[in-house]
């Protein structure tokens, strides 16, 4: 600083420099791209989808179903998409980090000073993150399916993408991952702490099944289909299963749960102290 007086150049007045949702989306896209942890988490997600799918297919080829009943129950689509449940954890935790990380670093105060109405920040993050996970996971599930089927074809256990319900399962799995990501994001915004939100996410994904398992059989069969993961995963179901909701109904229910968490987060964000 050798200048006699610091010069912060003035700018021509900009009446157009208003905050808008579209601009906040652009800003959130910059934020998402510029953190190395985003790329790493998404890489882990894809590796989980493809890697575990391939691994499980190899396992099933090594020990193929031997009797007709087992062969009838064999679901090649589900086998090749096994990795999705694991990838859901990576995507969900990344969703938590996107918001809770801002609270942990204090960045959220800067963000809300730039966007004082706050909610556009939440919606901006949700839009950018959902589209990004979809863009990454859709090729992921497709590759996992194709690689898996080529492995299964060795024992003629494979199924074609054109078979009824199969394409829906492949696309639906990617949609499910995007929804889990939004669930994590909503929990991060609602609880504002990384540890708390990750615990809540894992609890919501795995806890209800454990609790329902403790109930009498007739009750647990009735309730099971409405739990978050069984409902959401129904979108990838190819073989009709009476215990599970129909694919889109189940996925719709999962989206409803996610929407509820996001709505609670929005409510807390809009009224409380930042």
């Amino acid at each position: 600083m050798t200048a006699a007086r610091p010069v912060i150049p003035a700018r021509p007045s900009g009446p157009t420099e208003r905050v808008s949702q579209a601009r906040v989306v652009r800003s959130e896209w910059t934020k998402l791209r510029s953190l190395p942890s985003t790329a790493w988490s998404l890489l882990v997600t894809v590796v989980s989808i493809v890697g575990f799918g391939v691994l499980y297919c190899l396992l099933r080829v090594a020990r193929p179903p031997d009797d007709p009943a087992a062969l009838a129950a064999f679901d090649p689509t589900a086998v090749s998409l096994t990795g999705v449940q694991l990838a859901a954890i990576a995507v969900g935790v990344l969703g938590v980090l996107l918001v809770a990380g801002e609270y942990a670093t204090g960045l959220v105060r800067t963000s809300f000073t730039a966007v004082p109405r706050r909610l556009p920040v939440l919606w901006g993050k949700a839009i950018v993150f959902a589209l990004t996970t979809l863009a990454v996971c859709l090729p992921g599930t497709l590759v996992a399916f194709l690689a898996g089927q080529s492995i299964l074809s060795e024992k003629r256990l494979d199924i074609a993408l054109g078979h009824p319900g199969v394409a829906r399962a492949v696309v639906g799995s990617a949609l499910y991952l995007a929804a889990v990501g939004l669930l994590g994001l909503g929990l991060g915004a609602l609880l504002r702490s990384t540890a708390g939100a990750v615990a809540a996410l894992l609890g919501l994904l795995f806890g209800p099944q454990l609790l329902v398992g403790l109930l009498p059989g007739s009750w647990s069969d009735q309730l099971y289909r409405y739990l978050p993961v069984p409902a959401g995963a129904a979108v990838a179901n190819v073989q009709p299963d009476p215990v599970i909701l129909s694919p889109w109904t189940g996925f719709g229910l999962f989206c409803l749960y996610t929407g509820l968490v996001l709505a609670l987060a929005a409510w807390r964000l809009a009224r409380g102290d930042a």
Partner: protein
Amino acid sequence: MIEAHGLTKRYGDELAVDDLTFTVRPGVVTGFLGPNGAGKSTTMRMILGLDAPTRGSVTVNGRPYREHAAPLREVGALLDARSVHPARSAYNHLRSLAQTSGIPRSRVDEVVEAVGLAGVARKRAGGFSLGMGQRLGIAAALLGDPRTVILDEPVNGLDTEGIRWIRSLLRGLAAEGRTIFVSSHLMSEMAMTAQHLIVIGRGRLIADAGTEELIARAAPGVVRVRSTDPEALAVLLRSPDVAVSRAGDGALAVSGLSTDEVGRAAGAAGITLLELTAQQASLEEAFVDMTRDAVEFRAPGQKGVQS
């Protein structure tokens, strides 16, 4: 222009900010002074709409901050230097902020250059020194070329050169007709930077006055005089309006008279003076006295008596 009316914030039983009413005017640097924990940061967060007041209201440039459509044009704020994601580069941090208001990339380059971060803008902000972090925060505050600038403890942890830089920056911004509101817990620092001071203690307003007036009021001048006959001089000077006390080395400390008056009186009485100096009580001491008074009037957790 920042206008607070009866601004109050309560956290549970703790009254962090208690009925603050003040106005911060454009064109001068206004210092916001108080000991740590006095409620300065809470007040600034309420100004920026981050915390909701329990009672009262505050407007920036005529409106509650949250109602401004182009907030970065109205207010630039530095809340604390670490309100940045450590893994993101300084440039991307500023870029993402600029994008919320459609501020072009060229402006980001401009402020990065102006605060002297051009060489390190592409590096992780987490690796920045405290001083670089402060410069990044100031770059963020100036992105929108705002009419009002709010900085919370901007000189904290800065070296002498950094402090001088901020001081002249703030003066320059005020001279351009902007409203500049800067907090600090150091009165000596504020005395050199601010033309107007708002002093709070325990969340309550203690003083709201020009810096010079406040210093004169808080730290009245004392004349130190050493002479060949201190006993006689003490008797000569003492009056209901003048206090004379002895300093350890045989000098007298006289308050209530100027150096001219002491010198003339001694000359008239034929007393030889060996030393005659005007002394200002330490600003820091005066400030501590001022805020301690405010604290003494109230028991913890109770609503205090207006001092």
